[in-house]
């Protein structure tokens, strides 16, 4: 297998032109899937026999919570890639991804609290999963704070990568907190190995909104990365040409 495609990703110029053709389609597909999933889930899916209509927030809560974890996983992988292979694009990715992940974690916390009120009778409990997602949110905010307060770009890149890799330790804690520890939170909705316990007309819209949100975030991050590349490479010739030809 050739690794050329992988090494090509390290070049800002190549990445820029590649991402230009991917960002918009991904974003549009994401929006459509998200729309289908949400409308289907919120308006047409059958009500849960235990939780009634309040369960419908699952179509927001689960995708967002999955994204919050996936974004952090991506950050950690990017940090590792940067520390080992010194790829130029990895810090750009971390910089663009961190705020998106932070928003996802925040929405997951808020929607979880709103879901918790009718089902558990309380906005918040200090159990393992809720607390570890709160910690995840704080980790995102720490990365953003670090990036904003350091001046030297070389140091910003290294620092963000180091802290992203260290934060990976939180992910297995979140993942297995509902399985291993005693908690109020229900078990995982989707697993790769088992059939979902919900009927298809309940989990299909969920699948749509999960895939939709993934594409939506991917498109969004590609756009943010393009902006970040333009900022960082503003001295290089190809950026000048690019701006002259297509504008900003």
């Amino acid at each position: 297998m050739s690794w050329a495609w992988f090494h090509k990703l390290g070049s800002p110029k190549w990445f820029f032109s590649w991402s230009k053709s991917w960002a918009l389609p991904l974003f549009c597909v994401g929006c459509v899937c998200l729309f289908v999933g949400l409308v289907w889930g919120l308006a047409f899916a059958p009500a849960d026999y235990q939780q009634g209509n309040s369960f419908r927030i699952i179509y927001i809560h689960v995708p967002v919570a999955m994204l919050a974890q996936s974004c952090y996983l991506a950050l950690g992988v990017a940090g590792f890639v940067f520390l080992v292979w010194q790829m130029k694009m990895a810090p750009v990715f971390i910089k663009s991804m961190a705020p998106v992940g932070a928003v996802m974690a925040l929405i997951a916390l808020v929607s979880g609290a709103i879901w918790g009120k009718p089902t558990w009778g309380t906005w918040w409990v200090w159990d393992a999963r809720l607390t570890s997602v709160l910690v995840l949110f704080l980790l995102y905010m720490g990365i953003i704070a670090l990036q904003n307060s350091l001046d030297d770009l070389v140091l910003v890149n290294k620092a963000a990568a180091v802290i992203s890799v260290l934060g990976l330790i939180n992910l297995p804690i979140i993942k297995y907190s509902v399985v291993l520890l005693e908690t109020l939170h229900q078990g995982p909705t989707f697993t790769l190995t088992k059939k979902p316990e919900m009927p298809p007309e309940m989990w299909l819209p969920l699948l749509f909104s999960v895939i939709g949100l993934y594409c939506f975030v991917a498109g969004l991050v590609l756009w943010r990365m393009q902006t970040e590349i333009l900022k960082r490479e503003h001295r290089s010739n190809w950026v000048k040409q690019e701006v002259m030809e297509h504008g900003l």
Partner: protein
Amino acid sequence: MTYSSFIRSEFLVLWRRKQDIFNALLFFIIVVALFPIGINSSAEFLAPAAAGIVWCAVMLAILMAVEGMFKEDYWDGSLEQWIVSGLSLPLLILLKVIVQWLVVVAPLLVMMPLFSEMLYLPSLSFWVLIMTLLLGSPSLFFIGAVGAALTMSIKQGAVLVMLLILPFYLPVIIFSTLAVKAAEAGLPYSGLLAMLLAMSLLSLVISPLMTAIAVKASVN
């Protein structure tokens, strides 16, 4: 520069700047005092909460002590000397963290009998608390060293270090207080102590390498 001269100079620097260590210890005392004053000073409240109070205060005090660990070295150029000395940078950092740990944790442990009396800690869990401090505090220093190294070039970095590092401290405080609670309830607690030791050993392996990366990036 050799390893032994490095250790000697580190001890000497800490000895000459004793006030920093005293500040951290005084900070510990004040944080502990906040709880009985601010919440409830009765023995019924303090006895079950004592281990948690001590651990919160220890965490903050250690963070205060660790936060500026590399600042002096950064601004006076010692870090450049470490890098050009030909000695292994992660090893130097490891030695520095161990020296820091000895100097800060030893007085904390000496003060502990006093505080366990003041907070009405049940006597049978006193030694468990000491054990959690001994086994858990190294990881606090190792994790804190990474944060200190990442932020050493910022003049006012204390709040940033808190923001970055405190989330990583949470597992340590969770297992420590669980161990003390288990001891008070008469349950086995050796597994929880083993988890603390595991966290310290894991951070011992990872932190010097990560700190070295951060130090090199800051000095360039």
